[in-house]
């Protein structure tokens, strides 16, 4: 195997795939990426057994061949090479090492046999459809903050992607919840997605996909079965196993009977929450109390250990009976950070029932926040 490639191209591709490789692994080959050279160019492939990523980039293929090399080391080397340089990779067969040359630099990396590199059997992906990159971005970005990190409830450690029919409109939805709050985002159902099963895409897959979605403006092809999903970008293909679990019936926790509506400037509310939270930097609970009265929203916070406290107030459109409700300030800020329009709408019932938060200008996203008892 022998090739020459532009450093910037190699670096970008390595940047895409190396994130999949775990920092510590008990199987040595999983620390490596697979390199294949052929007439198509250079193909880089990384896997952690549950998630596999492959990217093909143009290069000057001098001699076809394949090997595997330590992913993080290779990435670190290429990153430190001078900008605009060319990289020569050579793998003399039967030598088990990769020689990297660039300018006057020379590196020798130990390789592992390419036959040992695990390949995920993709199986039959029965459903296939195309999503605009903007749609996929919104589906992920609006909801991913609410994914759970608590490992015992593994079925919440991802995004629930599924198709629903609501008021005769077919839509594609993502939902995430950690048991304290919930985020739901929807886009029109793309052609070919009808009848797809509801699937849970793991957190790591979502995180690894974000830069790829950010960079592209083209459509992305999703193919999926009950156990696997494949995201096909222009040059990159990501195949991931799905979380084998049942996502809770989230519709039941979205309240329908809330009758008090408050509208307020989202940016100003976020700033005010941030301000009053200053007294709680040493506090773990971080509850912010909202006092709603006609046309006014008062905020207050106090540190449970030092008894420092803070108050603030905002003009808000509110017409119902006065209501006092507490929220975790971090949860509030997370949700307010998702607003694209100017105004946020809170739909409330009482201090111990779930509260719905929406963007007043955009109906595609919905958030549910559980209050805190303070």
């Amino acid at each position, binding site marked *: 195997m022998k090739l020459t490639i532009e450093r910037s191209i190699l670096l970008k591709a390595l940047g895409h795939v190396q994130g999949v490789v775990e920092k510590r692994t008990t199987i040595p080959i999983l620390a490596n990426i697979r390199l294949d050279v052929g007439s198509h160019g250079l193909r880089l492939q990384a896997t952690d057994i549950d998630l596999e990523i492959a990217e093909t980039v143009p290069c000057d293929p001098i001699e076809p061949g394949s090997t595997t090399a330590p992913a993080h080391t290779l990435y670190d080397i290429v990153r430190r090479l001078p900008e605009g340089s060319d990289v020569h990779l050579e793998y003399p067969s039967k030598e088990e090492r990769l020689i990297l040359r660039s300018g006057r630099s020379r590196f020798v990396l130990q390789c592992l046999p390419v036959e040992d590199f695990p390949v995920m059997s993709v199986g039959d992906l029965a459903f296939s459809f195309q999503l605009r990159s903007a749609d996929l971005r919104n589906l992920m970005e609006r909801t991913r903050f609410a994914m759970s990190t*608590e490992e015992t409830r593994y079925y919440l450690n991802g995004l629930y992607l599924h198709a629903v029919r609501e008021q005769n409109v077919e839509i594609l939805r993502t939902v995430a*919840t950690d*048991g304290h709050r919930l985020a739901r985002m929807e886009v029109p159902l793309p052609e070919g997605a009808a009848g797809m099963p509801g699937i849970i895409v793991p957190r790591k897959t979502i995180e690894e996909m974000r830069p790829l979605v950010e960079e592209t403006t083209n459509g992305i092809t999703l193919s999926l079965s009950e156990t696997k999903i494949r995201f096909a970008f222009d040059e990159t293909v990501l195949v991931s196993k799905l979380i084998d679990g049942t996502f*809770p019936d989230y519709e039941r926790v979205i309240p329908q009977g809330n009758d008090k509506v408050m509208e307020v400037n989202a940016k100003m509310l976020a700033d005010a929450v941030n301000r009053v939270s200053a007294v709680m930097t040493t506090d*773990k609970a*971080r509850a912010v109390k909202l006092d709603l009265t006609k046309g006014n929203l008062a905020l207050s916070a106090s540190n449970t250990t030092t008894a420092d406290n803070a108050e603030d107030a905002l003009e808000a459109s509110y017409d119902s009976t006065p209501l006092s409700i507490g929220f*975790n300030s971090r949860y509030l800020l997370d949700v307010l950070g998702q607003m694209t329009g100017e105004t946020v709408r809170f739909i409330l019932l009482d201090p111990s029932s779930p509260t719905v938060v929406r963007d007043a200008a955009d109906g595609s996203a919905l958030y549910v926040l*559980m209050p*805190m008892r303070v």
Partner: protein
Amino acid sequence: MSIRLLPPTLINRIAAGEVVERPAAVVKELVENALDAGAGRIEVGIADGGRAAITVVDDGGGMTAEELPLAVERHATSKLPDDDLVHITHLGFRGEALPAIGAVARLALTSRCHGADSAWSLAVTAGAQGNVAPTAHPPGTRVEVRDLFFATPARLKFLKAPRTEAGHIRDVIERLALAHAGVGFALTDEGRSVLRVQAGGPDLEQSRQGRLAALWGHTFVDNAVSIKAEHDGMTLGGLAGLPTFSKAAATAQYLFVNNRPVRDRLLGAAVRVAYQDVLAGDRHPVVCLFLTVAPEQVDVNVHPAKAEVRFRDAGAVRSLLISAIRHALAEAGHRTSSTVSLAALGRFQGGSTAATGSRSMGDGAPVPSLLRESLGVQAPLEGVPVRAAGGSTAENEENIAPPPDLPLGMARAQIHNTYIVAETADGLILIDQHAAHERLVLERLQTAFETATVQRQILLIPEVVEMDEPAAERLIARAEDLSAWGLVVEAFGPGAVVVRAVPAVLGETDVQGLVRDLADDLAAWETALSLKERLQHICATMACHGSVRAGRRLTVAEMNALLRQMETTPRTGQCSHGRPTHIVLKLHDIEKLFGRR
């Protein structure tokens, strides 16, 4: 086969299986009899681990010739005068021990009442009673048991090595001797004196401490705090070891209820709670507690060997134990175990010769160049007057002798930016600044935490936790207490609970695991330890991050402020992980190091 009444010998042998399962149990029964007879001195002799012979001689009340045959009858006793099982004031009351022993061994009783002119003896061999015969003996009773279990060969096979059995016997005597400080005890093993303690004086507390010192050594007494508490008719006394004087196993935790040694898991739970934030998780404190309660408040008739008791109000007993220990430990404040200081001194002594002088600080002492480097902050800047570690206030304080009323003395220097050296009236103290400050912050956080209302995060998706029915019932029964801690649970059909809210400070937590742990706690300890421990852990983590780190330079004023706070804050002897915060080096120990004494 048709149903028939078993012959008395067999009945006694069956009873023996319960009451005397090993030689130590025989010793326990006989010594308790002697104690119940009002003995002032009890001598026990054993041979071959108690298998060949056990002799118990006392100077108690004795028995008459008429009483002797009755004593070896089943259910014959002098200890239930009013046929009242509620007010049990004697150690024994079942009337089972002697006939049971007589059924499985060769038993010889010799007794003379005080004031009587002759002694009488009676022999029982494998349940067969001999005749009462006159003999010579000083006032008191002598019980001889030979060839134990010869009548039940199966039991004989299950005995451990003589050395092990002798160890158990010693343990039994030790416990009884601890409980009865007013009685002298002696144990001889084939003529060799194993244990010998004199009867204590009239002051109970003093004689108890003397007895503990005699049996467990002076180190324990010196490194323990005295427990004294009274509540609702219950009195608690004894000693609790300092957290820094701990063991790797929970073997040295004794509880005596009305002078009866008992093994009760209640003690384990109470000790665990009381030492919770002052001891590392894998260390166990040494405690010896004496609880006195009204006889009707405790049921001793629940275990054949009376090793377990049941309290009418176990909750009150538990909270008395916890509060008494915690209070005593808090009073002890900044004391750390002297064993820590001794270990430190031992290190110093190790390299006192000139040849190894440079290593005299023990392992890991920095090589000279490193030492100079790390002390670099104290090296004078050129042209700046030399001064110790201090700011401007240090000038005046430095030459003042430490006032004797400051237990932790005056800060003199900071070394390696980590340890404070303080001078006291009678020695010097090394303080780990991070460990010490961590404890101060933790105490402050905990007080704030306990007084503040707990914030609860209500769950959007209530968590259903499945468990067995009794566990769920236990949790529901304590739902109110749990909700005060921020955890709201409700019944969810049989064998499940639903969690509606969790303490907000726990953040996103493993609710299932927490609730299951709590159910286990309630079963084992009847206290929701896990929840408390988790909340405490958060306090400890916050304290760790919010305190002065090692490596930060402190001014003399800051150091002195730290010392003064340590003196007034409870439990400052150890940090939240149980490590000592400081060690005390007494002046006379230092003088010894230099051969001045």
